[in-house]
């Protein structure tokens, strides 16, 4: 376990032969081994299930299970045998899937299970799972845990990376906690409680001043800047809320609960939606991103590398991209002006290195995100939509961004933040809207915003008497 950026995935990738260690030794069954390629890791019986899926969508399930280990009859593929074996493995895992199904047609969760099936097919003695449940539904998670129990009984060792506390306590025998790339401790699960683990994960630094700061400001909201009424679309069902000037509204929910879709709908990126969107009290029909930008609504997208930055362009060009047409209405760029703006952004956002000509693709994740946010702020938005703004970012940059969001809100901006990290929502959001399967489950405010409560509603719990007030 460990926070984002603690080094969990890196460590696992070294075990799986994706990265090479600079120093240190790995012992397998008491013997010193060198794992310098994925192939070598496979030979040693180490299989890894990656955070990002690595199944091939164009092949069928059997084809994926036996990828690069195809059964052969002479020089021909023995499809029959592969299918049969695939079927028995799927049955063993309790999956009702046809091995001839093309993986493209499976849900994300099913694909993840196929990946696990692949690890089993390879007779792995050690299976590394890197946050395997992040894309799974409750039902699929239970299936996975069942499979893990079975594997454990068979003598397979499993390294399970997660920052979901409940899962860890459900399946782990021992827990190793990492922080800032270092091992903090290894403990037996039955000897510790969640609180102790959290304090090991985050260290002893206090989050309290952040919290108290928020509370001071909690009542100073202005007029509603954005009102959403009965928004309904593909993954959204009758969602209504408003965000006031100076307010940070958190959108919580599991993957696929419609959080991102709501942001996209507000930005005009989804055309098949019904419902009203009011900006500054006036109703608008936002049909395209350009419409949204004109109204001062801007989105910081979730997928930073593909949707946020343009890696081959300089920091300067990325920073000015959105505002370019506004800064230079006659269409001709003045480098002095552009350079001046970029330098200002770099200084204000503390972008490292402070070289406006550096290609954004060569920056660290946190600095890339600062560039994306800087680009959005140069547009002078009134409403800022943040989709997982601190995902994969180191703790320092994260704290800087949180402080920035707070300052922006104090200056009168309305901010919506989607985050899967509950501590983030707890510490930064003034109000939190919890979504479940596209519907609003709860509206939490002030001191009611607790990880426990968010999780309860996000996993489908209903509002109870003592729960939160509705909108």
């Amino acid at each position, binding site marked *: 376990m460990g926070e984002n950026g603690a080094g969990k995935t890196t460590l696992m990738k070294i075990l799986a032969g994706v990265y090479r260690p600079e120093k240190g030794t790995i012992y397998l069954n008491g013997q010193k081994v060198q794992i310098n390629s994925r192939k070598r890791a496979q030979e040693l019986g180490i299989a890894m299930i990656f955070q990002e899926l690595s199944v091939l969508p164009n092949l069928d399930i059997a084809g994926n299970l036996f990828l690069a280990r195809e059964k052969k009859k002479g020089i021909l593929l023995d499809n029959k045998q592969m299918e049969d074996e695939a079927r028995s493995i799927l049955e063993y895992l309790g999956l009702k899937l046809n091995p001839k199904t093309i993986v493209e047609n499976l849900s994300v969760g099913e694909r993840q299970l196929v990946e696990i099936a692949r690890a089993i097919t390879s007779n792995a003695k050690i299976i590394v799972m890197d946050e395997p449940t992040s894309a799974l539904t409750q039902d699929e998670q239970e299936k996975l845990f069942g499979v893990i129990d079975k594997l454990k009984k068979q003598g397979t060792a499993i390294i399970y990376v997660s920052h979901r506390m409940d899962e860890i306590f459900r399946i782990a025998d021992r827990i190793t906690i990492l922080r800032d790339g270092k091992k903090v401790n290894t403990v037996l699960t039955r000897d510790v409680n969640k609180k102790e683990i959290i304090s090991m994960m985050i260290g002893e630094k206090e989050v309290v001043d952040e919290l108290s700061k928020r509370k001071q400001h909690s009542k100073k909201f202005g007029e509603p800047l954005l009102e959403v009424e009965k928004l309904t679309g593909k993954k959204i069902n009758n969602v209504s809320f408003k965000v006031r000037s100076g307010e940070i509204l958190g959108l919580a929910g599991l993957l696929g609960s419609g959080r991102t879709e709501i942001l996209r709908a507000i930005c005009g*990126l989804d055309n098949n939606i019904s419902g009203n969107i009011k900006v500054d009290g006036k109703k608008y029909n936002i049909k395209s*991103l*350009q419409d949204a*930008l004109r109204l001062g609504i801007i989105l910081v997208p979730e997928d930073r590398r593909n*949707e946020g930055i*343009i890696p*081959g*362009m300089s920091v300067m060009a990325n920073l000015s991209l959105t505002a*370019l047409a506004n800064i230079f209405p006659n269409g*001709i760029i003045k480098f002095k002006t552009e350079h001046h703006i970029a330098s200002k952004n770099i200084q204000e956002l503390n972008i490292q290195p402070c070289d406006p000509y550096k290609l954004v693709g060569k920056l660290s994740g946190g600095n890339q995100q600062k560039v994306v946010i800087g680009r959005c702020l140069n547009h002078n938005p009134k409403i800022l939509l943040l989709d997982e703004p601190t995902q994969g970012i180191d703790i320092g940059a994260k704290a800087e961004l949180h402080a920035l969001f707070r300052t922006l809100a104090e200056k009168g901006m309305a901010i919506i933040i989607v985050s899967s990290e509950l501590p983030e929502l707890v510490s930064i959001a003034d109000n939190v809207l919890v979504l479940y399967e596209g519907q609003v489950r709860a509206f939490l405010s002030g001191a009611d915003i607790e990880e426990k409560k968010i999780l309860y509603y996000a996993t489908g719990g209903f509002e109870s008497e003592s729960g939160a007030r509705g909108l």
Partner: protein
Amino acid sequence: MSLVQEDYKTKIAKLTAQSQVIIFLGLIIAVAIFSYLSPYFFSVRNFMNIIRQMSMIAIVAFGMTFVIIAGEIDLSVGSIIGITGMVAAISMKNGLNPIIVIGGALVLGALIGLLNGLMVVKVKITAFLATLVTMSVLRGLSLASTPGSAPVTISSSLFVEITTANIGLIPIVLIYLITILSILHFVLNKTVFGRHIYATGGGANAAALAGVNIQFIKTMVFVISGLLASFSGLVLAGRLSAGVPDSGTGWELDAIAAAVLGGTKFSGGQGSVIGTLGGALIMGVVSNGLTLLGMTYAYQLIIKGLIIALAVILDIWVRRTEV
């Protein structure tokens, strides 16, 4: 460490990291080698000859550079050259004013580009296939436009004059080339439109979410490419004093080669028209030099291929060592 020194170092690194610099160094080396090997090579007359030959390819390649920077490809330029030559020759034969013909042919080129762009952006056909379609259809139309696919002579001296005149020693096409180059360089580097082209090719999703109208940008690069190809087609028709149905065949590949030689990143997002000019010049110099040395076309093709391979490898190497 002194700041100045570091600044100086990064400047050198940045300079050498630009493929443009390498291509012009290569050009100088090629000129030096051919000047040494052939007594006829190093003369103003021969240089003007090279310029006449390469200008047309360069102009097409500029358009191609725009398309490739935006992350697309245009295979139809060779056929646009063919069809504009034919349309110009046939309409002048039927008594149309050469000036109107020139204007009309340029509009035709732009419209074909628009068609390419709409196929890519609206119908969502991959640019490779969409422009393969126009390439094939237009070539067919050019060949069918005249009985027996025979060339159609152009008798208008005004038309020939506009496209091939010399001012002193300088061919008029060089003036066209420099003018077009300056405008395109300005557009790419100094305008919002140009920046949006780079952004579209550098990451279409991110560009779209940043507010760039990538559909408009993609359509426009095809329009520019079509327009420039038709311009080149007119100059070629003037030089030949005829509309030749199969003229421009294979030029799309030369144009792509010139752009890539000049450091345009094939996957989009990076490149410059100056670099492309260098690429076109190198190809012009090499083919002229080899001809003067008596090498046949077959061997020239082989050497051209090797040069492209060398350039691409160098480019990969430079990008890898880039700081």
